[in-house]
């Protein structure tokens, strides 16, 4: 680890995922040590662990079949081989999505934050604001969630905390109009806009159309905007997260993902399936409620924390 903050994060993430790790270690150690061959029970245990981490039954079964095939060919004869293969496989998948957000200097840049209700969009924006501010990036928070009661106030409090300006209108206003205002302000200040949108279930066509409209207006006013459409996913979510990612991507085109709530006991394994199927960059992970609890996604750390060392 290169610096304190990373060690801090790593420890946190590890702690959050401690249950899985100890399970793997205990199970594998107990099952394998002293045994020369890979027993059938181990695969059952591995399946329980993979599914328990929300990787889904299909993924788990594919992985186990692949390992069984290798075991048959005598490629697996040491206790470490299984975890090593799983780790490698997952890291390979995730590494293709390990692509941090690059924000150009002295240019207006629009980040539209979307997702279903309650995944932590506003909180993530608050943390991003804090992070960008620290790096000296000129910022604008944009309250385009004009639907949920007090959403504007909530973002306003984050704006105050991070000491950045907020562009807002009244509740019930057209979110596109808010974004229109913000674009011109951002252009003049060459600022990065963090646009908070209302939470919406991916199955609601009318609400998805509203996002399309916002996007259309942005591109018209500032060609290329939004430069980043960030989907916020809740790590507590199960298999439905795949549907969320697919539908949001199909409707408005997602360019990045933030995975929140990794400080609980949920493992967020579904992100691996999403990475495998869609290859969308995973920008950040949320590991707590503090202002600095938003971290850059690193595949190896994520997998290491999942499986322990």
């Amino acid at each position, binding site marked *: 680890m290169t610096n304190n903050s990373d060690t801090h994060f790593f420890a946190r993430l590890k702690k959050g995922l401690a249950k899985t790790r100890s399970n793997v270690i205990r199970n594998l150690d107990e099952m394998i040590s002293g045994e020369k061959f890979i027993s059938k029970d181990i695969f059952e245990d591995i399946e329980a662990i993979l599914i328990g981490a929300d990787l889904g039954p299909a993924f788990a079964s594919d992985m186990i079949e692949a390992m069984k095939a290798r075991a048959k060919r005598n490629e697996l004869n040491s206790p470490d081989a299984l975890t090593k293969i799983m780790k490698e496989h997952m890291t390979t998948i995730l590494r293709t999505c390990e692509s941090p957000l690059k924000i150009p200097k002295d240019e207006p840049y629009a980040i539209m934050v979307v997702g279903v209700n309650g995944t932590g969009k506003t909180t993530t924006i608050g943390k991003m604001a804090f992070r960008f501010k620290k790096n000296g990036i000129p910022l604008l928070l944009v309250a385009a969630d004009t639907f949920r009661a007090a959403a504007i106030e909530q973002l306003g409090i984050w704006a105050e905390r991070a000491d950045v300006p907020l562009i807002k209108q009244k509740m019930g206003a057209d979110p596109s109009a808010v974004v229109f205002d913000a674009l011109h302000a951002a252009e003049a200040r060459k600022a990065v806009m963090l646009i908070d949108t209302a939470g919406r279930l991916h199955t609601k066509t009318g609400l998805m159309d509203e996002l399309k409209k916002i996007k259309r207006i942005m591109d018209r006013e500032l060609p290329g905007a939004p430069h980043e459409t960030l989907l916020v996913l809740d790590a507590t979510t199960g*298999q439905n997260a795949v549907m969320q990612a697919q539908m949001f991507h199909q409707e408005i085109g997602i360019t990045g993902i933030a995975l929140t709530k990794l400080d609980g006991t949920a*493992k967020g394994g579904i992100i691996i399936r999403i990475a495998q199927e869609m290859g969308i960059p995973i920008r950040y992970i949320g590991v707590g409620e503090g202002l600095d609890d938003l971290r850059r996604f690193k595949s190896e750390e994520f997998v290491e924390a999942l499986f322990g060392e």
Partner: protein
Amino acid sequence: MFENLTEKLDAIFKKLKGRGMLDEETVATAMKSIRMALLEADVNFRVTKEFIEDVSQRAVGREVLDSITPGQQIVKIVHDRLIELMGAESSHLNLSNRFPAPVMLVGLQGCGKTTTAAKLARYLKNRDRRVSLVSADVYRPAAIEQLRVLGDRTGVNVYDSHGQSDPVRICVDAVEHGKANGFDTLIIDTAGRLHIDDELMDELKRIKDAVNPAEILFVADAMTGQDAVSVAEKFDALLAIDGVVLTKMDGDARGGAALSLKKVTGKPVKFIGMGEKSDALEVFHPERMASRILGMGDILTLVEKAQTAMDEKTARDLERKIRKDSFTLNDLKKQLGQIQKMGSLQDIIGMIPGLGKIKALKNATPDARELVKTTAIIDSMTEQERLNYKIINGQRRKRIARGSGTTVQDVNTVLKNYIEMRKMMKKLSKGGMKSMMRGNLPFK
């Protein structure tokens, strides 16, 4: 993915048709598919394992009735057992023994507590309770303000905590306030918190001890994955919850968490959240949940929605036409208004796992502007064309476009959507719309 579990099993058991009894091997084969369906629906791994063992025992040796296939028989046994496990107990709120009766909502961040609080307030207000909403969430920015706005909107009193920063104090004061002002029900919205945050969990315990709630409801997101079990276990162990509210059920999550939650806490799901509006709170129906978990769609809710929007005669009429596959453009025109009343077809499509993803179906949903256009286009057709869309060739399309002041492309779109609708209706009516209307499931 399982478009239809019964069909899948039928395919597996094609050769077995006519067998008199379910033997161990048949059941074991079928259970592999059932198990996958449950896990895909996010039923907890452990809970799935126990369920499969239990239901396998029940299935082996059961007669396969002449009228149905082994696949249908097994799905029925599984379905019945799911209903049994999730239902049975009364899901009413018990508010009678205290004045005021505090109802406390607890759960993780973002599960929908505040929205649920407002919905519950409206639900109880409509049942002649005098309700006051109380926000004990002093942490999330603007949470108190959010509840105040929602309360104002639904015409429910919102307790003013005057900037008090101690959640326990707020609740105690709110009870006094309720007593003094004749509120018989308090709905306490607490801050979202992680089940492993000891300090905040302890705060919930202190609120519970201080106000002795009549009901403690655990609010859970229907999209929750495997972790639902560990979260619910913690909350229940500490607070002894009385029931569950499952939110965001208007999406397409299969909601396997419902089974897991019931299994680990033993407490019933009392309500489900079906949308963001304050009236989108419904009583839990275990049989619908069972179908949904098995990936068979929430067909009953769909039918019920259709029923409230249509009078019975129209419904019977439509049912007959769909069954006979004779749903004409005339019927489409007649139904367009009704469909609008059904609260937008897309919501309904969204309830059916897998269907929400199909783009063609999305386009089958007319919005208000489209409705006018569509009606004009149908009006410009001859009676013959309305009865048999297949005769509408290029020439006729041009004429219709001119007559309705639209373009050929518009006419094509209407026809395409109409054909999609026919397809969808046919799909939904498989197994008989009539039996669904009676509240039976297709395989019964």
